[in-house]
């Protein structure tokens, strides 16, 4: 069987990609990603189901499979005197005000104007950032590093085993009209690191420097200059292959054609920001994440900010202290990078993007000799903290550590969803605080809990902690 490529075919494919995906998207109003995989989509996937679009947020999520001790030194953990903290001046206890209330916290969580007792250490989080920050104390319920993907799936409480980031992305992509619906994993990847999947398929990771290399580069190299001509020929090859392709093969060929178009568009859009990236560190990830969102590539970017790592053996909790400083600094770098860019409407990305953390588990706050002697901390499934920063956040501390008796191990307690306070017997039982944190983050992103109802299993439980949400979406 032979297929003859006509000049008209060539022109059309050059303009709209193999299968004329672009043309079909224009004609139908359906997003290209839906046209590529219509069988995978549901009606909900096709249109933006959210009315209050002005408050919708992109998401940058710092994920960790290490179980960093972020939960040990953040606001909400200093009021109980038997919770153990590092003693270094760089993280000394400081009073900070969040949402009109004063809490103890490690120094880095304070504004840079706050200087430590040694005269040199100082806060790392700008007060403007802190004014949009929520700390939700919750339980992930696992102590296994490898459960990081399961924690992303709320340990079985998301529908169809979907990762939370995937569920958020599906809602947001249609509303933002992003280039792709799938999240982009910047800090993930390589063996034993954080995994991110979309609709059940594992996503590859791309490092900031790789992103820079792939989307910037020589404009004078003759092979680069010939790309536009080559694109036309490539479309012809795609069309030729598609002529006798099975539906599965045809879908793959369409995806190839679309990705080719995306690369060309993004290279010009992202060049300036990406040129500033010099490494894969947190600053590089921050720049890359901001650039990808500014160019409307994806609604969700994941990254990794270390906060002390897997510190079983951490003499004097030195690593924990050092990385609490660098971790909070990293968060501020993300916010600063966002502040330097705007969306297509000219709105600063600090008003369009929410930053959050999700840790596979926390670490022991007290109650074991290793912690008491400040020699390290072990895995702890009963307390973790999700940090959320964004325009739709009511700054504050939600939930908190609770000990059943003097000297007992602190665990995340029940929460009263309306006040956000840790309240024994509250309407969010401790066992459901992880789902609650996820639902709350969804609301802060602008996704009404009713719209997201199908993202969770019927038995998942949990409630939005409404006290934490500034612009509670209802429809």
């Amino acid at each position: 069987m032979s297929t003859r490529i006509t000049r008209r075919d060539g022109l059309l494919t050059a303009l709209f990609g193999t299968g004329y995906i672009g043309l079909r998207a224009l004609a139908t109003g359906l997003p290209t990603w839906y046209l590529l995989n219509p069988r995978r989509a549901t009606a909900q996937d096709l249109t933006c189901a959210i009315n209050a679009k002005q408050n919708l947020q992109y998401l940058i999520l710092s994920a960790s499979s290490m179980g960093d001790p972020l939960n040990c030194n953040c606001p909400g953990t200093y009021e109980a005197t038997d919770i153990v903290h590092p003693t270094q001046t760089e993280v000394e206890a400081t009073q900070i005000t969040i949402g009109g209330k004063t809490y103890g916290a490690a120094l880095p969580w304070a504004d840079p104007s706050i200087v430590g007792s040694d005269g040199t250490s100082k806060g790392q989080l700008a007060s403007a950032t802190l004014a949009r920050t929520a700390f939700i104390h919750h339980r992930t319920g696992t102590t296994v590093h490898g459960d990081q993907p399961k924690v992303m799936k709320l340990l079985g409480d998301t529908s169809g085993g979907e990762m939370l980031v995937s569920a958020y992305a599906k809602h947001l992509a249609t509303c933002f009209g992003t280039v792709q619906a799938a999240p982009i994993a910047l800090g993930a990847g390589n063996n034993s690191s954080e995994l991110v999947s979309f609709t059940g398929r594992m996503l590859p990771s791309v490092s900031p420097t790789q992103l820079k290399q792939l989307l910037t580069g020589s404009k004078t190299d003759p092979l680069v200059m010939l790309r536009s001509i080559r694109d036309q020929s490539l479309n012809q090859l795609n069309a030729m292959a598609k002529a006798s392709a099975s539906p599965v093969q045809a879908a793959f060929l369409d995806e190839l054609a679309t990705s080719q178009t995306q690369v060309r568009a993004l290279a010009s859009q992202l060049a300036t920001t990406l040129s500033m990236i010099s490494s894969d560190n947190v600053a590089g990830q921050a720049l890359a994440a901001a650039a990808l969102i500014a160019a409307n590539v994806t609604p969700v970017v994941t990254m990794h900010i270390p906060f002390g790592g897997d510190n079983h053996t951490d003499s004097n909790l030195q690593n924990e202290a050092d990385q609490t400083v660098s971790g909070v600094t990293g968060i501020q770098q993300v916010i600063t990078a966002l502040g330097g860019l705007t969306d297509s409407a000219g709105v600063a990305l600090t008003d369009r993007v929410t930053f959050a953390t999700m840790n596979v588990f926390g670490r022991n706050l007290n109650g074991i000799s290793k912690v008491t002697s400040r020699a390290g901390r072990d895995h702890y499934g009963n307390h973790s903290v999700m940090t959320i920063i964004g325009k739709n956040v009511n700054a504050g501390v939600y939930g908190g550590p609770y000990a059943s008796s003097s000297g007992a191990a602190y665990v995340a307690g029940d929460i009263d969803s309306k006040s956000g306070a840790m309240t024994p017997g509250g309407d969010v039982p401790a066992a459901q605080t992880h789902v609650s944190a996820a639902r709350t983050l969804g609301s802060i992103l602008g996704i009404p809990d009713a719209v997201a109802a199908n993202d969770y299993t019927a038995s998942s439980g949990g409630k939005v902690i409404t006290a934490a949400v500034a612009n509670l979406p209802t429809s």
Partner: protein
Amino acid sequence: MFTKELRRVGLALLAMGSLGVSACNGNIGHNESSGAGGSGASSVTGSGGSNIKPGNVTVPPTPTDPAVAAAAVRKVENLLTGMAPTDADVALVTQQGAAGLQQLISTWMTTDPYQTMLGSKMIGLFRNMFQQTGFTPTEDFKIQLLQNGGFDFGPFGVSAVGDDSYARLVQNIQDSFAMTAWQLVKDGTDFRQTLTTNRYLMTTGLKMVYIQIEMKADAPFGNQNAQPAWTIDFSRNPIDLATALATMNFSDEAPAHASTGFGGSMACTAATSGTYNGTSLLFQRLIGFTPRFPFSGSPTCFEHSSKPYLTTDDVSDWQWVTINHKATPTDQTPVVQPYDLPTLRNTTTLTLSLPRVGFYTTPAFLALWNTNDSNQHRVTANQTLLVALGQAFTAENTIIPLSTTGLDSSHSVAGSECVGCHATLDPMRNFWANQFDYNDRNDFPARANFMGGAANPRPTSIVDEFAFGDFKATGTSTADIGNFLQMVTDGNGLSRFAIAITQQLCFYANSTACSESDPEFRRVVNSFMTSTYNFAALIKEFFASPLVTGTAATGTFMTANSVPVSISRRDHFCAALSNRLGKADLCAQTATLPTSAQTATAKIAAAITSDAFSRGAQSPVTPSDPTLFYRSATEELCENIAPQVVDATSGSVYSSSDVTGSIKGMVETIMGYPPSDPMHDMAIQILTDHNTMANSATTTGGTTRPGGTGGSTSKATNALRSTFVLACESPTAVGLGL
């Protein structure tokens, strides 16, 4: 050109095909190739060559649609050898379907050059399958080879290591078990030996590493009296190995290749010689690193690179080595000193204090899954289950162990959420914890040290409890676990090990899992078991199955031709380019002393999605979608490689003086359309049109990429290079299953 030859072979094949199944074990479809690429599959001293026996064709001949047959051969041949199909290959599969494909696979496994290529691909698969790669040597070996010794080179890092013995030694560590597994296959051995073997393919350098790991912990600080005492002569005059070992006075001879980084080209001028103590630092000197002297914050001489005593031969002399376990594991006196390279070079039996059995006790596996005083080898046990059985501990485990010996009460308080896992996990961790300390060494410190290390006294009673799935037993050594892993079944007659290995092939081929209830999947698994776990027979059976080719509906893929199409991930893409173009390691993945051009190429190649695995994950990480990043990375790599193969100053594959022949070669070799394929002529026309357009448009500016000749590059050259890029990024080159 080899086209006529192929046609001749094709006719012969057609004739042979008519002989039926009984004649189908000979060498068929011997394709011409200009050479193999990639790494691995080196020659092995002492091996009896290849004894691969894939077995007879097991399915009857069934004619297949030519287009479906072409896509199937293109996919399977690429996956297994990296090569493109010939007309003869496609004709055979068109005539006989899966039976023809089984014949081809058997031929590839038993005939050079395919056999070598297939070996390289399988070694790459085994590195991931047995989780032997992905560690960071300078960090992850700090516990086995000690901080301030071994691979811990201090603040200058590998910049202070001379030549490439160290880099090759690291490759040895990650290749050893993968090569061992492939050699077991080549020797015709039961694949279950990957769980029980105490024979490994090793180099002299690896033997040195294995012994060094169980030497007394003598790295600085606080070990100034460690033995042996030895010196370095800082004059930079050479001292040969025999003299150095006789006098224990080693040279500081400059390496042939030194890093431009700090420590790379430094020498010690402030002292004439320095005295050191212990084997941890001597190990470093042998691999090209001269430690600082003295070992303090303000040394007289800083650490710097030197010529290694470990030669290139020492890190490439692969041979079978049997590792025996000492009767008295507390005995830390080595049978051979780790620095006695002349003896090690001729040693084929090592008697060690630490047990080394299967894949789960190799230094690579233990470095990747570092344990600690809290984890206490739980990660080691869990990852072992994931590799061997494709399953891990969950709270839903229903089996009850023989006893609660080993259950850690601090981790699993009765009635807590943790007990479900710990009840079976904790007893099983003892298979390691009873014979390896928390540093996966043999020190078993009785007391905690001031550096934060916990006390870890040697256990007095050795009781290892295995309880997983439908099998439980008590063992007395690490070696027992391999036998126990073989006993676990799925409860319906299939071995979990056989299921896990076959499932790994599903991911390798399709980037997705097969359904374990699929009758076709179970048939393939069963055939693996009935072949006495002959991996070669599994390869033949699986890759000819509709699970891979999609020629029929299966329980996994419910309709014919619905097997997912996947991107060609990095290992597949690079192997295909190297093997088809006859240029080894085009992606510069194994260069131990990379040129700046190779460094650039490797960096681009690293952006292409590759196969991986993750802690605690039951499935390998095999991304399949052609994302914009994949698209961009493959384009960059193709552009990078083009000057090395088109009008290159040496070893060029394609020439702008023969555009017609070059384009024909690109279509048949890179794109995988043999002459009789309906797409062949159309593809040639598209590439030819592109070459013409590019020739009209391009300037004469030269590329600065590797192989480029700068500003004098002609329009014709640039046009043909662009045409190569087009072929290189074409759908059939970047997709598996088209």
